[in-house]
Every structure is written in C-alpha cells, then in structure tokens.
C-alpha cells in the first residue's frame, strides 16, 4: 500500500529522527510513504485571522497535489498536520476562503477539500491496527513507563482535528501498549510545551516545559514521547532534564527491531 507523505521542513533537518525512523517503520509494516513531489512549507502556524489567505496557500498546494495523486496524505510533524488538516477543513467549509484561494491559484481542477489528511498515528491505529502492530513487535519495551506528550496541535480544535478525544486522548497510550510498554497518564499531557514563545520569552517557555516534565515525573513516567519537533525541543532544551524525551517513531523502530538492524 502506498500513501502520499508530507514531511515538512523540520523533518528534513533538526527533526530528521522523527522522519527517518517513521519511514522505515512504516515500510516494515507494509506501507510505503511516497514523498509528495515539490512540497513546500506547510505554513508553520495556522492563521486564526479569517482574512489571511496567502499563508494558507502552500497547504492548499499540498492538498491539491495529494488529491491529484488520488491517495491519502500522511503527515507526521504535529504542526504540519495541524495546518494542513485545518486548511483542508477551510477549503471544504469556508466558501469565501475557497473561492479566493482557487481564484489566486488557478489550479487545473479547483480544490474543495477532497483530499484525506491523516496523521501517521492514525495510520497505525486505523490502517495497520494496534493489535497487528503488537504482533509485529520483535523487542517489546517491557517494563518501561512512558508518558505520552500530545501537546496542543494534534488534538485541538477537536471539531477540525477529529483525531481523538481532546481531553482524554488514548491514541498514544494505545501505541505505547502496542510496543509493550506501560503508558503513564498525567494531567499536562495535552497542555502546551511553550511553543514558539521560546523565542519571545524564554523564562516563560522554561516554566511551561518544567510544568509538563515535573507533572509527568510525579505520576511515574520514566520518559516522554512526542510527535512534534518543537515540543521535543522545548521539553529537552527548556526543561530541567527531569526525563528523557524521544520521538514516538524512535521507539516504534526500536520495538520493530529496525534500529538494531541499522546499527
């Protein structure tokens, strides 16, 4: 099975581990992620200003390309997923934005939200299935207590993102169980890491990162996993080193026995 794949700028550089282990793991699970040709930046942040059109156009280009290839578009970076999924929602539901975007872009076939955008974790849950994933695990992470760190962008606003319950999500915990580890529930798992404000007010970003890490540690987590390069950065660089933080694809590759094969 082949899906279109949008890696995004950070997964080509600082977040290369998220991408690298993600692609290899998906291949081992029988799904080929075919990089979307000539993709551009997703836009990085979803503009809440209703009249801001231009900063959503690169996401529309990716969506139209995925539609033309007639395959679902898989994302992995939380930020890319957020921007592309919400822009797709806008193209389907906001007539003014759709008209203005199509007028500007002059695509061969106008775009109206036809592509299906799915996050890598949703592929694991809904296409592969966590039960099937569990069967393919060669090296279960038995005994490891792992906290899922969702952050903001995967879950909210739930009406548009529609991935999981925004207050009591389970997708990452189910993933942790599937790779043989024990998920640790903690209250800060779906609160903000500090985001881009680390560039504006680092002391505040440090307080946010430490609030997450201390809460997870107090609940018994021995490490955290995330799908977001900016969350990883904030937790590692702005936190006090309370817990190790990894991309979930790194643990997936480890459980599937891919990391040792490559070592």
């Amino acid at each position: 099975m082949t899906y279109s794949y949008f890696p995004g700028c950070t997964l080509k550089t600082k977040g290369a581990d998220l991408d690298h282990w993600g692609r290899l793991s998906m291949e081992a699970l029988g799904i080929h992620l075919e990089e979307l040709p000539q993709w551009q930046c997703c836009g990085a942040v979803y503009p809440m200003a209703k009249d801001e059109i231009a900063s959503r156009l690169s996401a529309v280009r990716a969506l139209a390309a995925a539609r033309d290839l007639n395959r679902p578009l898989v994302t992995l970076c939380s930020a890319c997923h957020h921007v592309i999924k919400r822009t797709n929602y806008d193209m389907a539901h906001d007539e003014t934005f759709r008209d203005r975007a199509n007028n500007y872009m002059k695509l061969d076939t106008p775009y109206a939200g036809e592509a299906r955008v799915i996050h890598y974790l949703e592929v694991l849950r809904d296409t592969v299935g966590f039960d099937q994933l569990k069967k393919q695990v060669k090296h279960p992470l038995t005994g490891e207590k792992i906290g899922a760190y969702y952050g903001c962008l995967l879950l909210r606003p739930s009406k548009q993102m529609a991935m999981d319950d925004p207050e009591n999500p389970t997708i990452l915990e189910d993933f942790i169980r599937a790779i043989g580890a024990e998920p640790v529930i903690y209250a800060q798992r779906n609160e903000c890491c500090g985001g881009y404000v680390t560039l504006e007010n680092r002391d505040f970003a440090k307080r946010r990162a430490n609030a997450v890490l201390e809460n997870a540690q107090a609940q018994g987590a021995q490490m955290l996993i995330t799908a977001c390069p900016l969350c990883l950065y904030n937790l590692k660089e702005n936190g006090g080193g309370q817990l190790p933080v990894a991309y979930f694809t790194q643990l997936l590759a480890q459980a599937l026995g891919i990391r040792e094969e490559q070592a």
Partner: protein
Amino acid sequence: MNWTETIERISGVNPRKCMKCGKCTATCPAYEEMEYHPHQFVDMLSSGRVEELMGSRGIYMCLSCFACVERCPRNVEPAALIEAVRTAVLRQQGANHMKADAVPALLEEELPQQAITSALRKYSKGG
C-alpha cells in the same frame, strides 16, 4: 478606523457572546504572563477598549495552544480574538514585533526550523 469592527472581521468572532464563565482564563497556560487575563481581554473587546489591548504585552504571550478555543462553552474563541488584535497591530507599517534581521541572533544548535518560522509568522506581517 473602527477597531471593534476590524477585530470582529479579522477574527470572525463576536466577543459579546461571552457569558463570563472564566474557563478561558482557568485553562490558559499563559495567563500569568498577561496583564489582562483572557476573560478580561474578551470583556474589554466587548466594551470597545481595543486600543488598550493593542498596546498590551499579552498579545505576544498567547501560545496559540487552542485550550481556550476548545473549552469555551460559547465558541467565543479567545485565542482568535487575541490573534486578531495582534494582527491589527502588526499590519501597520513598521509595527512588526519580530524582525527578520533579528532572527540569526536567536538561532541555536537544536532550535527547529518550525520554531523560527512559527515565531516570524506570529510576530511579523511583512512591511
């Protein structure tokens, strides 16, 4: 310039729908960094005090985490209102809060590209 109309046009939100339950402030991870808490921010917009908010520090502290948007029982979307006020400021000539020239000094080894692009998108609008 009718700032109240401008903010409602940019955000697509009517702040007068707010019933002052305070959930946005209760859930906001940045509320201690803001001189006006999110529920106060919405209340000030309802009474037309836009220019005071345009000069506030809090408009650069919102994390765009969508906690208030998700949890508001009235779909007031405080984050969208804060973004609209910040946008109204940044769209003025010379009013960028972060300048592209300032970025190189902010870079460090582990900082992801996503952080830089996000901050520039949030804190500048060209011009």
